[in-house]
């Protein structure tokens, strides 16, 4: 009881997190001018990294914050690419088509959410996979796609190679920065508090008046839009569209790997996970099957031994929060953080331990 008598304050920003946000701004600016200095191959690789960050952040938004684990997010990835192909074929400039496609994917996800969000846990996870398979098969019926033979985003050829590479790079960077920004703002808003309440305990959240389904729908549509954009961007870098590659469950496997390793439910975790995945792919990607076995095994081991991921471990070890989306309770008279109470808004599992 004596603790309650002391002066307390609720804290969100720390000196470390202010520095981190400034650091992020500097990194984004540096990345924006990078293509003028880097060689072409590196620009392409960085574009891929940005797309991975989008994928990880969007899957993390859905699973880590919304409590919705989906194994069918490739449906939005494939659909983003497919709609870009379709729109470009209708004569729209490919770069504009990419954004319209992203919006189209978001629009598609809205009615889908009406019945998919009724499913819980594993049913939602595999249900989404079935949806992905169904959409894949339906896209195959489109004559333009020519079944599994696929087609290409030919209209990109209108742009000269360097212009094309740099435009795609900047679009990917801008999409990544914008999506991360939107997610950061949403998670820190009133809706964000609702989201984290749902993640911690859905029934309890509903009982205090959180509109569970509406809040989940917001995350579902946001994730669909982000992953749709990622699919469109990937198409722009790869040019060819084969339904099998874009609607492959592999994409969701990558998302799960990145988020599990980086730290599920941690804003910074998804970014860290994407960078790690990018490095692993760069170094070991040529190892073929063993590379995939390694990815699966790593995800499995992390889910068993380190379910909060690397960033969760870093947070716990150094009490570090760089991009804070929760609040912490500080007992100012002692000048120290009340550890047990400080975790409330950030960590569901630790909350149980401290209770």
């Amino acid at each position, binding site marked *: 009881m004596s603790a309650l008598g002391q002066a307390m304050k609720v804290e969100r920003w720390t000196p470390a997190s202010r520095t981190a946000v400034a650091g992020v701004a500097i990194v984004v600016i540096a990345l924006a001018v990078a293509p003028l200095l880097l060689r072409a191959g590196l620009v392409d690789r960085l574009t891929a990294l940005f797309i991975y960050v989008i994928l990880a952040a969007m899957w993390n938004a859905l699973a880590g914050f919304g409590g919705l*684990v989906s194994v069918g997010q490739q449906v939005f990835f494939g659909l983003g690419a497919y709609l870009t192909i379709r729109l470009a074929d209708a004569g729209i400039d490919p770069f504009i088509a990419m954004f319209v496609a992203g919006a189209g994917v978001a629009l598609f996800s809205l009615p889908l959410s009406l019945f998919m969000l*009724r499913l819980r846990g594993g*049913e939602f996870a*595999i249900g989404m996979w079935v949806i992905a*398979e169904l959409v894949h098969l339906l896209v195959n*019926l489109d004559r333009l796609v020519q079944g599994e033979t696929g087609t290409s985003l030919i209209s990109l050829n209108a742009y000269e190679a360097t212009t094309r590479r740099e435009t795609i790079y900047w679009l990917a960077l801008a999409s990544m920065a914008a999506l991360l920004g939107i997610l950061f703002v949403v998670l820190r808003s009133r809706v964000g508090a609702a989201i984290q309440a749902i993640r911690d305990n859905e029934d309890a959240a509903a009982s205090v008046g959180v509109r569970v389904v509406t809040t989940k729908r917001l995350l579902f549509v946001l994730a669909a839009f982000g992953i749709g954009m990622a699919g469109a961007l990937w198409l722009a870098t790869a040019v060819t569209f084969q339904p099998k590659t874009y609607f492959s469950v592999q994409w969701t496997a990558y998302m799960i790997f990145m988020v599990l390793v980086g730290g599920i439910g941690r804003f910074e975790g998804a970014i860290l996970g994407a960078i790690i995945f990018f490095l692993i792919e760069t170094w070991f990607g040529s190892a073929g099957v063993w590379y995939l076995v390694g990815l*699966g095994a790593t995800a*499995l081991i992390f*889910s*068993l031994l380190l379910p909060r991921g690397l960033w969760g471990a870093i947070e716990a070890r150094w009490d570090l929060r760089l991009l804070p989306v929760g609040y912490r309770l500080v007992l100012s008279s002692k000048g120290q953080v009340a550890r047990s109470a400080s975790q409330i808004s950030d960590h569901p599992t630790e909350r149980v331990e401290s209770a």
Partner: protein
Amino acid sequence: MINQLIQGVLLGGYYALIACGLSFMFSVMRIINLAHGSLAVLSAFGLWLLAERFGIQPFLGLAIVLPVMAAIGWALQRYLLERSSRGGALLPILTTFGLAIVIDNLLFEQFGADTRSLAPYIGSLSYDSWEWPGNIYVGKLAVLILVIAVALLGGLQLFLSYSSMGRSIRATSEDPDTAGLVGIDAGRANAVATAIAMVTVGIAGAALGMRATFDPYSGAPQLLFAFEAAVIGGAGSLWGTLAGGIVLALAQTLGAQLHPLGFLIGGHVAFVLVLFVRLFVAGRAGGLRTLIGRAG
């Protein structure tokens, strides 16, 4: 038309067989095992290896493969699922997904991309059939698979209802803590349940290998078929699973009639429709309940 209905029901028997382990695990542990299909394919490869290398006929091979599958199930629960379900309901999904990727790719590493079948090792059973009036041929293997599915589903039901282990498993699934108070070892009950589920997966793998071909990446479609059959039948209900398998197969048959690429589409559409209808009925039932409440 009648012929297609009969073939559809027989195919539904296979789907019920592959779905029965998934449905069983879901009903007693609330866990959906994403490695379900991959484990069935693993069993099929095990039988293929025994037949190819050591000349052991697949039906005899089951005597080796099924105990191995049971052991895999026991270990799966003890070392993976028990640990990961402590971290919440979502973590086992990710754990079993990781496991599926590992199994699929290890199988690929070991056996390559070739498609295999157990059909060459079971003699004439793979193509023998009975001729029914009206030029209808009913495959003996397909009937056998349907019979095994019904027997397994019925056996599981009896086991859960009447055996002492079955009661322990049901008690654990209702309330593990209270079950613990009356002396039930919850960990053991769940491990036994998973072992049983993996035996059915092993049998389903044998059925897959005998009636069709498989390759290292066949696990994902089998998981989806199993899941669709279980959900259409009402997840967790064992007899519903049989009905779900038959509905799935009939929808696929119908889809194939309508369009050359319609087989899989038909099944997936049936799944989505069932979800739709359930949503609608749930809404209606809620409305009915308020009506009745008001009248009372």
